[in-house]
């Protein structure tokens, strides 16, 4: 790897400097596909999308197409969506229920547990016989779930999901583990292509609350509250990061994101006292599970006189090239919330985020612009500045949760942690 020989010089999180080259270089992109996306735990589905045996969804795992299927035995498995014979896709639609997957090329047929169970005209085609047991769909060797979030890993040597998530689990509990029934996905995900590098939105969601001030400044022009600098940013050594935004001091806020009061006793049952104390006053939670799964859970108001209402989006930034991603954006709601609340939350998501979201429109504009603007020979010699808080902010002592916490929502520590982890993985042979 030409450029990669000195990646440690190009990416210097401890100095708050990240080379612009890593956002545009095709060779570095290929190293990312290999060293990050075939070795990290990648999000593939929410359990509410595949509740019954036979249910499947087709997804993307890094650079490869995958089928996520709950087998007839109830177990979730993830397979490369390619026939073991000669590679045609065995599942050609988004979602459904199937007992078998039949390749349209030569008809090799797989059970929904991935076993090869049929070959047309087998005795004629293979008079010598074939060991079918060795020709099942290529499975991701590791599949595991945390609070209904299904992850998979192509690497049989990978650490457990629990170890991989590590301290970020404590924060995922605030969103995904706070009620008896948890969250459910509303409708199929929005999917759209944006001409940017996957790291820009992933790192942004991990630790960039500061951009809300100007990128989303229209909100203030329309009577909304200014972007808050108050709160905490927390990251863990695995590169995961969350932002826990508080309203400005003195600004009114309802506890628990104004989630329906009938759910609050469930929070008290499922979360620890420390988790409740952290969650109770928040206005927003945003974050990224390295490498490319992000979430956003903001309490918003349509108009100044309206009550606060939270919406919840989960998204994945699927790499399609150094300068292209496919965004998958899900809307989530609390399963046990009243229907009218769920409907209002769904509408709030559509208004603000997603492809036509008044807030998200400006994010994708910026992320695409950054890659286009910095693709040239002079720009790519330069770095991006990730120095906010460097050398000045001290981690909070006695922070009740895991990870390293800073007492501000405006700091670039999580982004430095993201690139630190990136560097660690991309330079690991």
């Amino acid at each position, binding site marked *: 790897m030409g450029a990669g020989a000195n990646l440690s010089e190009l990416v210097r999180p401890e100095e708050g400097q990240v080379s612009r080259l890593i956002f545009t270089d095709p060779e570095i992109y290929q190293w990312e596909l290999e060293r990050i996306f075939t070795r990290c735990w990648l999000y593939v589905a929410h359990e509410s999308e595949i509740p019954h045996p036979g249910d499947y969804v087709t997804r993307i795992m890094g650079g490869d197409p995958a089928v996520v299927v709950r087998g007839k035995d109830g177990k979730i498995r993830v397979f490369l969506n390619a026939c073991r014979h000669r590679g045609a896709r065995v599942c050609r639609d988004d979602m459904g229920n199937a007992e078998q997957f039949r390749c349209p090329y030569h008809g090799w047929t797989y059970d929904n547990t991935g076993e090869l169970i049929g070959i047309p005209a087998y005795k004629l085609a293979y008079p010598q016989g074939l060991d079918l047991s060795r020709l099942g769909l290529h499975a991701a060797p590791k599949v595991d779930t945390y609070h209904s979030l299904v992850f998979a890993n192509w690497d049989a040597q990978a650490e457990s999901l629990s170890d991989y998530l590590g301290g970020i689990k404590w924060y995922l509990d605030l969103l995904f583990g706070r009620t008896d029934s948890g969250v459910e996905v509303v409708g199929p995900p*929005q999917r759209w292509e944006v001409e940017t590098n996957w790291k820009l939105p992933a790192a942004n969601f991990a630790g960039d609350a500061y951009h809300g001030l100007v990128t*989303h400044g229209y909100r203030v022009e329309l009577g909304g509250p200014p972007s808050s600098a108050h709160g905490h940013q927390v990251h863990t050594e695995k590169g995961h990061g969350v932002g826990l935004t508080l309203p400005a001091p003195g600004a009114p806020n309802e506890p628990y994101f104004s989630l329906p009061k009938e759910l609050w006793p469930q929070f008290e049952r499922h979360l620890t006292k420390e988790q409740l104390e952290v969650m109770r006053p928040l206005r927003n939670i945003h974050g990224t599970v390295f490498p490319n799964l992000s979430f956003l859970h903001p309490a918003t108001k349509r108009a100044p006189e309206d009550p606060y209402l939270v919406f919840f989006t989960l998204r994945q930034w699927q790499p399609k090239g150094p300068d292209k991603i496919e965004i998958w954006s899900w809307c989530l709601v609390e399963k046990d919330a009243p229907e009218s609340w769920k409907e209002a939350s769904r509408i709030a998501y559509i208004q603000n985020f997603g492809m*036509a979201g008044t807030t998200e429109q400006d994010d994708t*504009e*910026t992320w695409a612009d950054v890659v286009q603007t910095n693709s040239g020979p002079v720009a790519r010699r330069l770095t991006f500045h990730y120095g906010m808080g460097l050398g000045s902010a001290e981690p909070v002592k006695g922070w009740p949760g895991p990870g390293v916490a800073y007492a501000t929502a405006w700091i670039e520590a999580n982004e430095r942690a993201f690139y630190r982890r990136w560097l660690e993985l991309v330079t690991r042979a």
Partner: protein
Amino acid sequence: MPGNSDLRPVADAVLRDIERFLFWEARLLDGRRFHEWVDLFTEDVHYWMPVRGDSPAKTLEAEFAKESELAFFDETKETLLRRVLKLETGMAWAEEPPSRTRHILTNVEAYKNGSNSEILVYSNFLVYRTRLETKEDLFIGRREDSLRKDSKSWKIAQRKVFIDQSVLFADNLSIFF
């Protein structure tokens, strides 16, 4: 008309009138006269653009998300107006500078639907958008509108936008259909 015996094509003169209305609407959009555009909708309008997926032929009814599921747009007149007001804040970066659009409408059909006083209008659209120097998007699909005539002009009481892509090929939807 094939498929639905309750639908009766409107008279030619009415069809021409409806086409004129749709072309006027397109000219307002391409001319960035967004307040006038929002005025073309009734107070109780529902404006909806569902997510589209890839379904097998035998379950094609599942191709588009249902009304309670996920959509790109799911609007009232108030939320459409809010989108327009955003464009005037000077901080709508996705539209600074503004996109250039061209709404091309064809295949306009208009039907009286049983005893319903509203007219059911189908049209196909091709919306070409360019932004900045070289960004170029093409959105193609169809619309299903319910038009209501008030004392003197047509208003859109319902619009459903069905896009001909499952993964959409644009950075955002900062324009209207």
